């Protein structure tokens, strides 16, 4: 017990079992959802459940894609998410760079303010934003929803990008500046290419945040013009008592982009989130 042996002790295997349980806990619900989406409604509601792979089909997916407005809603989500990413990254990279590279007066205050914004409840923002957007005529529009999402993605982007710039040595920029590069030029040509993986991770995180949101979308959209898929799914369930296989098929369809993005840059994303919030 007291000494560390070279052979694998019982605790080694206990840890393995623990890790296996965590993986199953995370994946089984998703796997079951995927499995359900490929079955027929009859089989889903029959008990005891028999697991068989011979009756699986993509029928539910084809039905959802052809007979509902889900493709339109996914397109809306995609557009709004992309616009949110572009705005958040453009503004957040500039601000993150400034906060990382310049030690100006008020820097700490700006950083703290962007952190404190997390305290603000979404519902407190929602009512005034709703009024604001309706005054500007931006209700039920891509740009209105995008601006609303930027309220919570931009502060996060700034913190993340600051963290990624912090991890770059400033020497390279200094060298470029000595060679006659302007400060903006040094940032654009030297730092930005180096921070590209971080930029991709931040962008993906922003996209997922916008893609996943329900609360703001319920409020700020009212028609197919800008309604996003989570609202659509919520309403389909409320109105038509969606059959389980259709419900799960839509769930898997909408989860797909998240999983792909996550598979590509998940590790960097995870590293950025923790690093950004633990420092300072």
């Amino acid at each position, binding site marked *: 017990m*007291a000494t*560390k042996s070279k052979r694998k002790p019982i605790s080694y295997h206990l*840890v393995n079992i*623990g*890790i296996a349980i*965590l*993986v199953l806990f*995370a*994946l089984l*619900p*998703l796997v*079951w*959802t995927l499995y359900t989406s490929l079955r027929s409604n009859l089989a*889903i509601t029959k*008990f*005891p459940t028999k697991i068989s792979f011979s009756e699986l089909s993509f029928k539910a997916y084809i039905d959802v894609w052809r007979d509902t407005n889900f493709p339109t809603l996914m397109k809306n989500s995609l557009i709004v998410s992309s616009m949110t990413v572009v705005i958040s990254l*453009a*503004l*957040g990279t*500039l601000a993150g*760079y*400034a*906060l990382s*590279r*310049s030690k*100006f007066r008020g*820097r700490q205050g700006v950083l703290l303010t*962007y952190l404190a914004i997390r*305290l*603000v*409840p*979404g*519902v*407190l*923002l*929602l*009512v*005034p934003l*709703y009024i*604001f957007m309706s005054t500007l005529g931006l209700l039920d529009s891509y740009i209105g929803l995008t601006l609303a999402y930027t*309220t919570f993605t931009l*502060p996060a982007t700034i913190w993340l990008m600051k963290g990624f710039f912090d991890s770059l040595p400033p020497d390279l920029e200094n060298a470029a500046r000595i060679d006659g590069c*302007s*400060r903006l030029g040094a940032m654009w040509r030297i730092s930005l290419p180096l921070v590209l993986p971080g930029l991709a991770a931040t962008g993906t995180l922003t996209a997922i945040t916008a893609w*996943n949101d*329900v609360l703001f979308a319920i409020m700020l959209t009212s028609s197919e013009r800008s309604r996003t*898929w*989570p609202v659509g*799914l919520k309403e389909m369930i409320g109105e038509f008592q969606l059959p*389980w296989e259709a419900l*799960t098929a839509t*769930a898997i369809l909408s*989860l797909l982009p*998240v*999983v792909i993005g*996550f598979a590509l840059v998940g*590790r960097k994303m*995870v590293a950025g989130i*923790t690093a950004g919030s*633990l420092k300072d």
Partner: protein
Amino acid sequence: MTFGTVVSAPVRKFKGIIEGKYFAWVLLVPSMVMVLAFIFYPVYRGIYLSFTRTVLLEGPGSTFIGLENFREMFKDPLFIIATKNTLLFMVVGLISQLALGLAAAMLLSQERKYIGLIRVIVVLPWFTPPVVTAYMWRFMMDANSGVLIKMLEAIGISFGPAGIWSNPDLAIYGVLFVDLWASYPFFMLFLLAAIQGIPKDMRESTAVDGASSWQHFRFVIFPLIGPVIVVASILGVIHLINSPTLVLLMTNGGPGDSTLVLPLYAFRQAFQLYNFGYASSISVMVLIAIAGFAMVYIRFARFGKED
């Protein structure tokens, strides 16, 4: 960091502003404009609205009524219920997510084959769209056809014919369980990062001194990751209180008012009754509660040190 002042060639005035001592501010202005317009202004308006009577169905105007909304709030039985539910949600949610997050972080800090991939898989629930999380678990915990319910029944645990979602005593724990699945990875991430920051040979030194694994955890790891637990708890509580999404989707406050939490109540006041003033007052109370919790918690944990 002062190379900006070293290279001060006589450039044009405009370029001078960008490149000179206002460089940082020039880069900050675009995001600040956004934040001012879409966060600070709405928050200011929200706080103002909380002192007014603004009911959209009665017309567009709003009347300043001072603290009337807040006075009404403490007489409102639904507000009292929502406050109780929110507290329960916060306490049980925080404890369960922190405990599982810590256990998972300890497990995943071990070196294993594919551990990098495993860590990413375990975090996936946190990024799963809440709509998917909500309906997926509702389906699996459905009283008639839920696979989880059937499995539990098979080993002798029954939730009765009402199941979980129609039982006012169980529904909130149902949502809390789903929230545990979705949100504990957040705690795990923070604690894992903190544990990985502890030098590996520390365990060898304590082992030489005869410390058991538990003692090593209790007296070495725990104090070292303490500050991170505080930070993660505050962010976790903010998340627990501020995002009524799962409750909205899974139970919408029901059955009865058994899962009605404050932000959901505010949401309902705003967008079902169009009572914008009262909804804002509830939101302001939530903001005060969160800020208060954060301050007390930080002080309690003695984390108010500089840097």
